[in-house]
Structure formats: C-alpha cells, structure tokens
C-alpha cells in the first residue's frame, strides 16, 4: 500500500491531495469535508454515493480515488453557488421529492448528468436513467416529476 499525490478538479476548484491506493472516491470527498455524498449500500447498487467523474455518474463507493487523477469530480455541494439553489434542488423541494433525504444527493447528481446530456427528457427517459438510484421513502413519482420540472426550468 502506498500513498500518492493526485491532482483533480473538485467542484470546479483545482486540488492536490495525497491519497492511499486503496482509498475510495467516496472516502476521499467525505474526508475533505464534503459530507453530502452518502454511502449507503457500499456495493455500487443503491446510487446514494453518485458523483460525476468527468461529467459521468459513477458510484464513488467503488471508484478508487486514484482514478480521479487528472479528472473532474462533481459532488452535490457543487450544485449550488451557496446563495441560489440549482433548479434541480428547487424542484426537489417543490415536489417534496424526498423524506429521509439519504438518497437525495445521489438522485440530484444522477439527474444532473441526465439533464446535462438531454435537457428535455420525457418521463420514460427519466425513469430509465434514474432506475439505478434507490429510494425507500417516496415511491419515485415525486422524484420523476421533480426532474421533469427542473428540465422545464433549465431549458426555458
């Protein structure tokens, strides 16, 4: 086991960090104080730990931190500028698209990747895209509606 220095762009900011070879990306971002990324199943099934790696959604619980070297990583903390919420966040609140909230950061990041590629998806596309993100509270309907509404807000 060795430590090595990696350079990444984390929520837009250049960072250099020293990581152990075995460290997962979820442990890295959480150790940097970005606690929005949740680890739930810890076996890449539930989607709670979803972050964007070069814009693509990945399970950070089973991605090694060293794989982020030279790449961009976006977590839920990067969605808002600290003053104004991202349209997806506003829409999730408006639709009450969460209860316990544990899956929400992963839901938001998956949805962001979808809207970045497909700004105006239909309901079927949203369901297909989000089917790897598990929510035990909402029954999903409000989440799908929230993503569709956010799409309308951002493509307006």
């Amino acid at each position, binding site marked *: 086991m060795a430590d090595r220095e990696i350079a990444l762009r984390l929520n837009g900011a250049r960072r250099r960090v020293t990581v152990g070879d075995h460290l997962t990306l979820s442990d890295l971002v959480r150790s940097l104080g970005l606690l929005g990324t949740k680890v739930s199943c810890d076996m*890449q099934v539930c989607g709670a730990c979803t972050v964007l790696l070069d814009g*693509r959604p990945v399970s950070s619980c*089973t991605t090694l931190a060293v794989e982020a070297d030279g790449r961009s990583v976006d977590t839920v903390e990067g969605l808002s500028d600290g003053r104004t919420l991202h349209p997806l966040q506003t829409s999730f609140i408006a639709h009450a698209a969460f209860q316990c909230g544990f899956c929400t950061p992963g839901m938001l990041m998956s949805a962001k990747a979808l809207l970045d590629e497909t700004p105006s998806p239909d309901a079927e596309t949203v369901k297909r895209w989000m089917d790897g993100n598990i929510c035990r509270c909402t029954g999903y309907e409000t989440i799908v509606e929230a993503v569709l509404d956010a799409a309308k807000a951002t493509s307006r």
Partner: protein
Amino acid sequence: MAMKMGVLRTRHLIDVKPIEALREIRLAGGTLTIGAGVTHWVLERDRTVAGAIPAFSEMEHNVANVRVRAAGTLGGNIAFAEPHADPPTLLAALGARVVLEGSSGRRALAVDEFITGMYQTALGSDEVLVAVEIPVPARATRVAYTKFQILERPSVGVAIVASLREGRFADAPTVVVGAADEMPRRADTRDLAGADARAADTAHALGAAAQRAVEPVGDLAGSAEYKRHLVGVFARRTLASLVAQAA
C-alpha cells in the same frame, strides 16, 4: 467490487482503462472490433456500433444502470464472467471472439469457449483481454435479445440470431440462453430449420428447446423452477421481437 468484498486479493493493481489502444471501435472487413476498454456508455451511443449491429447497441443501452455503463467496460464484463450479464449471451449468439494477448503472443477464442464457468474464464495469468471481434451479421440475418431483470442484473436473457425466408427459418436458428445458468448455453434447435417462425407451435418448440439447454440456478432473484419458466417465456418473446423486425 470483488476486491472490496475480499473475494479477490492482489499485490498489484494495474489500471488498463487509460490505454488508448484499448478504446478503439473499428468496423472493417465485415468485423466490428471493440477494444476491451470501451465502456458500455460509449457503446450505447456509438453510431458505428448502432449502424453495424442495432440489436447489440440496444442491448448495451440496457446493461445494468447508468453508473455501471459509465464505469464498466465490455472487456471487463466478459473477463469477470459474472453469469448475470447481458453481453456474453448476445455475443455468443453472434459468434463473437475475444482477442487475448500475453507473453506467448496473441490468440482468439469464441466468447463461449472463453467463458468456462461461473466467474471462470480461459484467460491465462499472463494474458490480457484486448478486444472483442464481432462478425457483422449478413443483411438478411435478424438479431434479437430480451431479458428479465430485477435491479441491475438480468436473471434470464435470451438471444436469437436467425435468417428468415418467407417467414420460415432458413436454417436452424441460433438460440443462446444467458444468466439463468452458470454460463451462456446454446439451445439445440436443429428441428426448427424450415419451421414457420410465426407459428405458435414453433414458439412453443423454441421455448422448450431453450428450457432444455439450461440447468437454472436458484438465487434471490428467483427459484430454479421459476427461472426455467422465465426462460420459456423470454425465448418466445425474443422470437416475437425477431419476427416483428422489418425484413
């Protein structure tokens, strides 16, 4: 994932994903060659792939979930030989080969010779899977794949490759059943050469042949008996999808 679960332990881990040469998609001489490091995410969007073998493109679009497709590669999928997978089933039906490179040179193996069992392959300890070669089916050949899936892994997948002449199988159709058994299995369909692909008794016979080809493994996604039932249902659905394709 296997390392995290403590199933695999290695002294060294080499990331081959950044190697450019493993990320090529090439169509030449009737063969679609896909580098082992190409992700499902890229394959489901690639126009060369969609143009050459639409059913393969569609299958890739439905692999697992979006995160798995973003990170997972075709080569990794085959080399892992997890029985609950989509690509090996369709690739076996298409007659695809894997290209292996090692210290003693380069060799190619049919996908269903490469996969030897549950999580087991013919890959040598000094070899790397570098590419998958898929013969592009002739224009008149139809290809279909359907599956039953709970969460991100299929419990049953059925692939059919066949040519129809006036609605009848020109030859014995190739039928491969995946996910239900420890590895993809080929059904004995010799009796179906010349059969009317639209007829109910053909669908019944094809479903029964698919069921005979497998010894389903019961797990959390269903009992062996339930999966055997699904194999029949999905074999008939795959046939219906094949018949419905434009000639």
